[in-house]
């Protein structure tokens, strides 16, 4: 192929021109629109046809000009880009739906009232435009915060102490290995099974087969939270430089005090951000709450007695059993507003975790 005229450079000979692939893309978009119009036009089919055409035709053309290997390479490249776009679609769609359906329902009334006394009559009136939308998520926010706080109080000490045992004391012993292995296994416990465990634990210890309180839910969430805390704290403790420990030992400081005063303060930012992420994970759990805390429509401040509602179960019940079966859209409005609040809480927790990890990290540079 070097026999071409002197005008073409030898370096670029045998390569597809740069405009070719974008041109094929344009062609695929146009042809995709035409094909999609044949079976009834919609954006979805248009995108699918255009994408398929491009991913098949472009590599074929490239492989005809540049050879089979280059063709395979570009085929995989387009597939990888395609996978990325396909993965983005649901995320964008979920966030868009939560925002567009949640914002109309969001109001001070929603945040400051419970569902107590709100009946189908009110919802029917609201659907006909004869009255405002009553009812809110105040009781669910209280339940969410109390149950999550209790779960955190249970799991952080246990998780942190376990990770200290694993890093500082176990030294690759058989018990340490067993704990590491079972913590890993525990990460995979289905959330509903954790809920069933807490329910049957309290059923057998209190004698009431349907004992449901905020505490039971907190125990269920702890089962899910402890392994996350352990894994994270363990990693953070392991990256504390050994020199720090040795310097402390050299001053004659005892081991427990070295851990409390040197090791943990060094790792505290990582541990705190890990705990925040663990909270963000369990705060959105629905299934274990369903089987452990029941569901109420009024405010219950006491996590140790009586049923409680949380934001996820509130969303679930508003969708599954609308307050007014004939005006389900009102319940759905409330559910999406609650979903928006829940997502905002989870995202805030994630941001806080990142901020803690970034701003309170120990200074490593001298």
């Amino acid at each position, binding site marked *: 192929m070097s026999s071409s005229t002197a005008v073409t450079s030898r370096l670029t000979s045998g390569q597809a021109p740069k405009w070719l692939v974008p041109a094929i893309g344009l062609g695929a978009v146009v042809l995709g629109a035409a094909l999609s119009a044949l079976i009834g036009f919609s954006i979805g089919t248009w995108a699918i046809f255009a994408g398929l055409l491009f991913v098949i035709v472009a590599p074929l053309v490239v492989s005809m000009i540049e050879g089979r290997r280059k063709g395979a390479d570009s085929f995989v490249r387009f597939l990888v880009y395609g996978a990325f776009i396909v993965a983005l679609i649901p995320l964008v769609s979920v966030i868009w739906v939560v925002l567009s359906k949640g914002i109309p329902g969001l109001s001070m009334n929603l945040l400051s009232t419970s569902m107590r006394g709100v009946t189908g009559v009110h919802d029917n009136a609201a659907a006909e435009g004869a009255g405002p939308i009553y009812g809110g998520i105040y009781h669910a926010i209280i339940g969410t915060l109390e149950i999550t706080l209790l779960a955190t109080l249970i799991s952080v000490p246990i998780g942190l102490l376990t990770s200290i045992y694993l890093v500082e004391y176990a030294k690759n012993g058989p018990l340490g290995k067993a704990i590491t292995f079972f913590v890993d296994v525990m990460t995979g416990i*289905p959330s509903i099974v954790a809920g069933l465990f807490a329910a049957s634990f309290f059923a057998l210890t209190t004698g009431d087969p349907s004992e449901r309180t905020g505490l039971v839910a907190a125990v269920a969430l702890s089962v899910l939270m402890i392994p996350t805390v352990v894994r994270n704290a363990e990693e953070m403790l392991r990256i504390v430089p050994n020199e720090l420990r040795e310097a402390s030992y050299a001053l004659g400081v005892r081991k427990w005090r070295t851990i409390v005063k040197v090791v943990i303060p060094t790792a505290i930012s990582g541990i705190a951000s890990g705990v925040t992420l663990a909270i963000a994970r369990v705060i959105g759990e629905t299934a274990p709450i369903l089987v452990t805390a029941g569901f109420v429509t009024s405010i219950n401040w006491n996590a140790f007695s009586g049923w409680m509602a949380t934001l996820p179960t509130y969303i679930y019940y508003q969708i599954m059993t609308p307050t007014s079966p004939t005006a389900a859209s009102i319940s759905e409005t409330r559910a999406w507003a609650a979903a928006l609040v829940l997502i905002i809480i989870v995202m805030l927790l994630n941001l806080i975790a990142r901020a803690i990890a970034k701003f309170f990290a120990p200074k490593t540079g001298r």
Partner: protein
Amino acid sequence: MSISSDAPTGPSSPKSSRKELPDVGNPAADKIFSGISLAAGILILVVLAAVAIFLVAQALPVFTADSEDLSQGSFLKYIYPLVIGTLIASAIALLLATPVGIGVALYISHYAPKKISQAVGYVIDLLAAIPSVIFGAWGASVLAPKIVPFYDWLATYFGFIPIFEGPASQTGKTILTAGIVLGIMILPIITAMCREIFVQTPLLQQEAALGLGATRWEMIRMTVFPFARTGIVSSVMLALGRALGETMAVTLVLASGPLTASLIKSGNQTFASEIALNFPEAYGIRMSELIAAGLVLFVITLVVNVIARMITSRYKEFSGAN
């Protein structure tokens, strides 16, 4: 003075009369502290054992109960459709999420410019942080209605295959939709784990492959995939564990019913969804039956997770990645 890092001795300096010695702590507290942290570690093992023991204790009445008290006459008859339904939903999720997840991981580790890949990493973490009930609500109210024409099309042209047998559900609330939502939910798990392993591929090997004239895809096939094979398998197993036990996505999206072969009709049911739907109103023998179902789910996910962890730990020993 020899101080081992395991058991530092107390302040045995000859000049112990000096006041400015650091506060070294109470010697007795050492034992207490190590005891407490050991107890915390053991408590975790106890909790895991307790999960199994309490579930078994509460599930036992099912096996001694009269057959007319059980909802399906026998426990096996009750559990069998649930096993199949759970496996179908998880299989659909894995089939969809594995290629896309590996693709996105490759995009982050080997294709995207550095700045973009960091941003994409955040976005994937974001996807992982969205609570499952929101995915469930999205699947039920957005995805299900939109996917009905596709199911109709499948039923018209591929109806001769039993799994696409029509008439398709007109609400879109089928096991296939549930599987798609599950797939979206486990995608971040596969992506995050694969990305971590892909970026660990030895750079020298990759550069050697490129230097020998390999295209990027050949380089990935020759260096990245062999290095990451076990990691990919274990990430898929972990995602499977998550999909098996995921509740809300299925409960909200699936219009459950008896076992059917067709994926685009309403019907079928999974363990987690069955428990979540019925447990709040259950009492007596029905409650035990649901807990027994939970026990079976627990055992299945336990086996899947143990296999995944065994693959990962064996891989750690041989790869020298750590």
